[in-house]
């Protein structure tokens, strides 16, 4: 920790000294996500992209590195820090029935997913492995399969459990015919995430393996409910996502919103953890000049990180959905320019 020393001295040689210690944080890692979990290598070339988000379902038989995704291993070995979002949400396989498969010589049968999430009225509710199923040990085979593939990668990643629990639970959940409110779903998810993290941590993991829980971060009570100290003691990062979707949204306001809630509501263990912004983006419909908005991000992050509370450590631009860069070339140029400035590096 650097120390600055101040001495005052008079002509007779009498003096007094005061000291102040400070910390200079590590550079923030600027990162990326390309829609469809697509190969981002070409987009990242020539820029200080040091971080990447990927999404996989535990239902998918190819989690690490993913089906036809050898480039993920290449990027990881070259030092890009991977945030692997692993979801109980069911996708990546043709049907939602039970699965039987063999991992390292052990046969597992995993039942069909019994929960629905994202129960927005008027939409088809996605299926997910239930928190009750996880706690009953019925999903252990999924975790064993993921871990076996993880070990072949040769490096540690951050495993973010769930993409956005608040999005998943906003309209309640249903498991095995029983309905749960948003708050009840959060409480059940905390138990299930604790189970999964404990399951992985009890095994031999690649060096540098870390864990976090996924939140959009748009609802203050949900953010507090999903970050009890008992769970945070097992996790390495805080995480939330950031989008600008209104002409009045500033980078400073958008990036600090969830941090301010965290600082006010969470305990010391949670606040000791750095932050991964797994997704950030600017929606072109409301903010046509995405590049200009992106240019305001470095000073905003520098200011937020200079204030009390957890440090934003990594942040991955979400070039998909709300964050789709249009025109892409101008957006990528703005990202490269932003990531070349402090506090990135």
């Amino acid at each position, binding site marked *: 920790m*650097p*120390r*600055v*020393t*101040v*001495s*005052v*001295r*008079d*002509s*007779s040689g*009498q*003096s*007094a*000294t*005061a*000291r*102040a*210690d*400070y*910390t*200079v*944080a*590590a*550079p*923030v890692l600027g990162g990326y996500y390309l829609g469809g979990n697509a190969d981002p290598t070409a987009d990242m070339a020539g820029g200080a992209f040091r971080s990447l988000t990927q999404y996989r379902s535990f239902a998918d038989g190819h989690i690490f590195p993913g089906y036809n995704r050898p480039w993920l291993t290449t990027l990881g070995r070259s030092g890009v820090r991977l945030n692997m979002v692993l979801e109980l949400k069911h996708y990546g396989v043709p049907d939602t029935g039970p699965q039987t498969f063999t991992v390292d010589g052990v046969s597992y049968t995993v039942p069909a997913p019994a929960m629905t999430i994202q129960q927005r009225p008027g939409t088809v509710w996605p299926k997910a492995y239930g928190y009750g199923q996880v706690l009953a040990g019925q999903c252990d085979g999924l975790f064993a399969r993921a871990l076996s593939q993880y070990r072949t990668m040769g490096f540690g990643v951050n495993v973010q459990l769930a993409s956005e629990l608040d999005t998943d639970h906003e309209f309640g959940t249903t498991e095995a015919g029983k309905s749960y409110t948003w708050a009840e779903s959060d409480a059940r998810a905390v138990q299930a995430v604790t189970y999964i993290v404990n399951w992985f941590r009890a095994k031999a993991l690649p060096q540098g393996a870390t864990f976090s829980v996924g939140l959009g971060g748009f609802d203050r009570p949900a953010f507090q409910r999903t970050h009890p100290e008992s769970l945070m003691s097992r996790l390495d990062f805080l995480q939330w996502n950031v989008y600008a979707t209104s002409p009045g949204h500033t980078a400073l306001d958008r990036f600090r919103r969830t941090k301010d809630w965290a600082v006010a509501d969470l305990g010391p263990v949670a606040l000791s953890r750095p932050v991964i912004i797994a997704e950030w983006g600017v929606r072109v419909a409301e903010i046509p000049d995405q590049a200009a908005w992106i240019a305001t991000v470095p000073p905003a*992050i*520098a200011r937020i*990180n*200079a*204030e009390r509370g957890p*440090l934003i450590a990594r942040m991955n631009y979400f070039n998909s959905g709300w964050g789709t860069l249009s025109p892409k070339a101008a957006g990528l140029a703005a990202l490269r320019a932003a990531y070349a*400035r*402090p*506090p990135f*590096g």
Partner: protein
Amino acid sequence: MAAPTVTASLNATTYAPGAQMLLTVNYGDPDNKVLTVTVVVTDAQGNSSAPAKVSAVIDPLTITVTDDSGRTWSRVSDNGAVAVYRAVA
């Protein structure tokens, strides 16, 4: 002779790389007095000039700022009791 006093405080404890850091130094010395000298010039005819005043600090304090990380701290302001220094993280 009394010993001088000093305190030092930074505007944050953690800085992003490249961020501006501000250091506020409060200092003083009980012996450190500002003396005002008033000069009046009088000629042979007894005509006197208007009094002219100058101030002088007796035994001024010297401030030294060092940083064990090698950063250079530049003085932004100093009013004799509070000095502000700036460096880049």
